[in-house]
């Protein structure tokens, strides 16, 4: 198991391959790290960062500095589905707090936490640019708009059943 990143149980050769695709292209660091994050439990823990660093030559400290600046990265493993609930003003004035509370109650977790089955991580996020169809949330790369507390819970149930791609 020497190719295994211990903290992340991800094959380090896969990570190295992603990093190698854009080696020496500094404008692709964001893409490398997003692609890596997708296969590494929605996070870039230190052992994963070390693999990227080894391939690209970018010091681990710089990668840490980078991922802790941008809100969409995490250094701690997250669930299979990262649920980002917008709390900015255009969502706020049309009931985003009620939607967020319904999701939190249904999943039994607070923002920042992950469900015990490892399926969902709940996060608050800032404006996601769906202001004319708010309240809105993102689940990984998918967006859902005009939510009510009930439709948001229905959506979480659909994800639990695996009925959403």
């Amino acid at each position: 198991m020497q190719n295994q990143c211990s903290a992340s149980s991800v094959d380090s050769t896969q990570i190295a391959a992603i990093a190698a695709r854009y080696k020496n292209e500094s404008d692709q660091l964001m893409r490398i790290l997003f692609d890596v994050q997708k296969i590494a439990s929605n996070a870039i823990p230190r052992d994963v960062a070390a693999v990227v660093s080894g391939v690209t030559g970018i010091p681990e400290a710089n990668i840490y500095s980078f991922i802790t600046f941008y809100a969409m990265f995490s250094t701690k493993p997250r669930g299979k589905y990262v649920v980002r609930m917008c709390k900015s003003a255009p969502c706020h004035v049309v009931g985003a707090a009620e939607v967020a509370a319904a999701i939190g109650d249904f999943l039994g977790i607070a923002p920042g936490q992950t469900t015990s089955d490892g399926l969902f991580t709940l996060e608050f996020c800032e404006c996601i640019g769906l202001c004319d169809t708010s309240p809105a949330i993102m689940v990984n790369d998918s967006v859902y708009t005009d939510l009510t507390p009930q439709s948001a819970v229905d959506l979480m149930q659909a994800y639990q059943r695996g009925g959403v791609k």
Partner: protein
Amino acid sequence: MQETRIVLRNVGKYNPASVGEFRALGGYSGLQKALSLDPAAIIEEVKASGLRGRGGAAFPTGTKWSFVYGTAADQKYIVCNADEGEPATNKDRVIMAGDPHSLIEGMAIAGYAVGASEGYIYLRFEYPYIMPVLESAINDARNAGFLGKHIFGSDFSFDIKVVSGGGAYVCGEETALLESIEGKRGEPRYKPPYPGVSGLYGKPTVINNVETLVNVPVIINNGAAWYRSFGVEDCSGTKVFTLSGNLVNRGVYEFPKGVNLRDLIFEVGGGCPNGRKLLGVQTGGGSGSIINGDMLDISMDVESCEAAGATFGAGDIMVFDDSNDVLEIVENLMEFFAHESCGKCTPCREGNYRLLQLIRKIRKGSGTMADLDTLQELSETMMDCSLCGLGQASPTPVVSTLKNFRNVYLEAIERGRN
């Protein structure tokens, strides 16, 4: 009210996955015409059109291009700012999803005008579903000969890469955006030098908003005089407005500049739903002025907005009804800025946090009259001393509500005394 669709001219009229359909609508004819003109003449035409940046700063586009044109360099860049992060703005999303080719065409014309062969679109993380639309449109344009080497058989070569943001509002600031493309933390640079002289990788760089660039092909095709026939004297053309909040008809609508704000809210937006009354409007996005219901007769152009105490910004109109608490909205906005401040400069890093603390204190009923003076003084300090537009603009919701909703603050303080 009938929309005037210049920027949105093609949205909904072709399949973004079909460059052929775009071409049949006259697409890339602006680029074709531009390539027969002298680059300096293109810049003069854009200057004459009065086109100004649509991302919020309203800087004259032709003037910006002339800086890059006039700076000699072995490499120059065109960067499209598609980091549409201002709360209450989603018009660039609609433009890119529906008409990616007009953006590509506008960027290529800009490239030819200033002598740049490479372009970047910096797309915010929150629009991952737009990424494949842009990338496949770029591929299609390249395969059809509208990007790449020797475009339309000329000596001009130009290509575009799309890069993703990482969920940082500050990257909408142009130099922070450049840092981010370069694979660094998105912290704003000290200016000068400005990007027109030293931008991406230290090279002269044009940075324009999506909507700004989409105006360019029709200006080249129809001329500056035609463009100036829309809008008002110092603010030509149209604006794509985002209507959000407590409105019946939320959405993205395009009108000539100078349209009346009250008409936008009530005739286009349909007023507040559920029989509620309008309490206030935030104009110009999360960092814009919050105005009250007595201030709505405003001509929506940059100078008139400023004179009336409103903000034009990127054309954002966020309405809130009387079920809302103004101070709660201000607290929400200051939470946003405290979170999104990058921390590089002290006035913004500390100031936003202290503004948030004071607003919370007043909401709780522990505020004093002296706190109102502190809010004002701290806001002015941030506006004067912050490094970039984030900290210069973020106190606007505070200072505008101190003025336009002063009674709300006074009542909260009074409530605490009793």
